[in-house]
């Protein structure tokens, strides 16, 4: 136990000293493994893990979903989603911010990345909000919060990585994300409601649209619906594995981008290269985390934690609640993906041992990641928004996200208390099989 705590302390020290997280995990993992099992075994482990992770077929789902997200972002589909949402709820007070959130949820159905969702929506939704006289505080924070829905509504990069790490069926995870995603959009809209109640000038109402416009706008989203139906629908129906669905989705997105003439050779090369770089960066973190996890698995940490839980006869839900609070606290200061990769090997056995469904825990993990992405000071989505809207002062953004963070914590509590919200759809769809 002591050596594990030391290792975690060393890791955090290295990471906060600014060593890239991937290398910090790699270094501590190699050293720790060598301490437990000797240097030759550790060196062997490093090479084997790196090579095996590099040529893992199941993991090829990651670049394909990233590519799909980047392609749909270029194809102009977020514009149509926003227009449709606006036609229905834009005339409410704060309606434009709510439209943004609903459009984010819709975009999340074809994009597995929160950052891409937030960035795309900034370009689409921020100008109209400003035009209508929205405050920067509400406009920017609504996009930051809505953007996190990208990883909850399937497809989702985090779910894929969680699924592969824990051998949980990705199709079931994808199904489990749908209802919590709708709940999330609803709660975030309530947060907008609260924000405009506090500051009525922050989000004035837009114009009401006649029903003819509404139906026309709704028909405009057929592309998103088709892509979701083919790719994710195929996974739900059991026609595709996750990788096949991702490949199909990416190809579909490619065709859409082609027919909308948003692709030139240089744009295509850009999109591909951007996706390749993101993939490479994620895989370095993944390899670092795997090397570190191999070491952790040789220590007594996972067992000790289970003994601890048993000895104190803690209520199972309390244990998971405690884990979630650790995540929320860690998530304010840490990068979310590495946080998950580091802790899941330790927490997962405990959760399964308590008799919980790994799919449910996976959804909770995604939700805490979402909270981490918009909670200051270190929140990925906040950084994306700051970079794209440099004139919005950071403190303004930090204050603006407060109601959204509260809404997210409420959602976490609801999902914690009612596992059925996450588990109902997968059980109805009866997605068969174990593993990927």
């Amino acid at each position, binding site marked *: 136990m002591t050596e594990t705590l030391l290792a975690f302390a060393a890791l955090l020290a290295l990471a906060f000293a600014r060593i890239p997280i991937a290398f910090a995990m790699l270094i501590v993992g190699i050293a720790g493994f060598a301490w437990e099992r000797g240097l030759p075994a550790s060196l062997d482990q490093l090479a084997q893990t790196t090579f095996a992770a590099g040529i893992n*077929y199941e993991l090829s789902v990651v670049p394909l979903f990233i590519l799909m997200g980047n392609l749909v972002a270029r194809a102009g589909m977020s514009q149509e989603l926003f227009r449709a949402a606006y036609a229905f709820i834009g005339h409410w007070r704060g309606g434009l911010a709510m439209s943004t959130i609903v459009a984010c949820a819709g975009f999340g159905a074809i994009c597995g990345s929160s950052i891409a969702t937030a960035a795309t929506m900034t370009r689409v939704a921020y100008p109209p909000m400003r035009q209508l006289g929205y405050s920067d505080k509400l406009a920017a924070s609504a996009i930051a919060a809505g953007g996190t829905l990208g990883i909850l509504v399937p497809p989702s990069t985090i779910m894929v990585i969680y699924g592969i790490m824990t051998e949980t069926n990705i199709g079931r995870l994808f199904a489990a994300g749908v209802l919590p995603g709708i709940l999330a959009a609803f709660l975030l809209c309530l947060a907008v409601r609260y924000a405009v109640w506090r500051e009525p000038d922050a989000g004035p109402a837009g114009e009401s649209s006649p029903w003819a416009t509404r139906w026309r706008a709704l028909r405009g989203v057929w592309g998103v619906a088709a892509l979701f139906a083919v790719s994710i629908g195929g996974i739900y129906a059991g026609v595709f594995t996750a990788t096949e669905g991702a490949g199909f989705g990416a190809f579909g997105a490619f065709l859409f981008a082609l027919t909308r003439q948003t692709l030139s050779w240089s744009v295509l090369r850009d999109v591909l290269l951007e996706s390749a770089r993101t*993939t490479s960066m994620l895989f370095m973190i993944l390899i670092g985390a795997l090397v570190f996890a191999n070491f952790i698995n040789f220590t007594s940490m996972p067992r000790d934690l289970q003994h601890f839980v048993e000895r104190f006869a803690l209520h199972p839900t309390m244990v998971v609640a405690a884990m979630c609070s650790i995540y929320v606290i860690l998530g304010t200061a840490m990068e979310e993906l590495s946080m998950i990769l580091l802790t899941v090997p330790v927490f997962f056995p405990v959760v399964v041992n308590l008799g919980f469904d790994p799919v449910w825990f996976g959804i909770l993990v995604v939700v805490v990641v979402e909270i981490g992405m918009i909670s200051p000071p270190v929140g990925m989505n906040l950084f994306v928004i700051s970079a794209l809207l440099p004139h919005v002062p950071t403190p303004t953004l930090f204050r603006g996200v407060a109601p959204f963070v509260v809404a997210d914590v409420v959602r976490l509590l609801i999902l914690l208390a009612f596992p059925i919200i996450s588990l109902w759809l997968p059980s109805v769809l009866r997605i068969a099989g174990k593993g990927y």
Partner: protein
Amino acid sequence: MRASGDGGGGRASGDAPAAPRPPSRPDTLFPGRLGAWAGWVLGTVAATVLFAMMVLTFVDVTGRKLFVHPVYGAYEITEFLMGTLIFSALPLVTAREGHVTIDVLDSFLPVWFARWQQVVVTTISTAALAFVAWRLWVLSASHTRTHEVTMTLRIPHGPFSRLFAVMAALAAVASLVIVWGYVSGARQVRSASTGSGS
């Protein structure tokens, strides 16, 4: 924390017609024409491989579901395309200082300190990359010695582990050039930054 060197603009994709986008910064492995050329070659390889993966998956699945005729060995081809993709982009990510870093403490540190911090930190990264390259090279030697191949297509492992080792070594070189940049003062510590992740 930050990752992509282009301030969020690179990864962050917007809708093309509505918003003009800044042109993405070209990848260069290190300053000079050779570095630019190497960056272009690696970038083209990575982009082509990813495109091939997408097309291969699509053709394989359509073939299997519609014509009961999958691509022979698609599974194994995808595996090696994956590895090539990840490792050929690794030097590019490294050259952009694109690895995810926690930089919450940056605003509390003076600039002169940040510069030497970068020197030390990047040296450690260089060492880690070089170490990985070395171990992959050793693994590749054992792959070649034992004639390790895949089951269906009998693709030899050796050349690929060697390729991964070379790419990791290239990334280490790119990283070393960054260290030198900080030491010589040619490279400045950047202030505000963003971007990466899930």
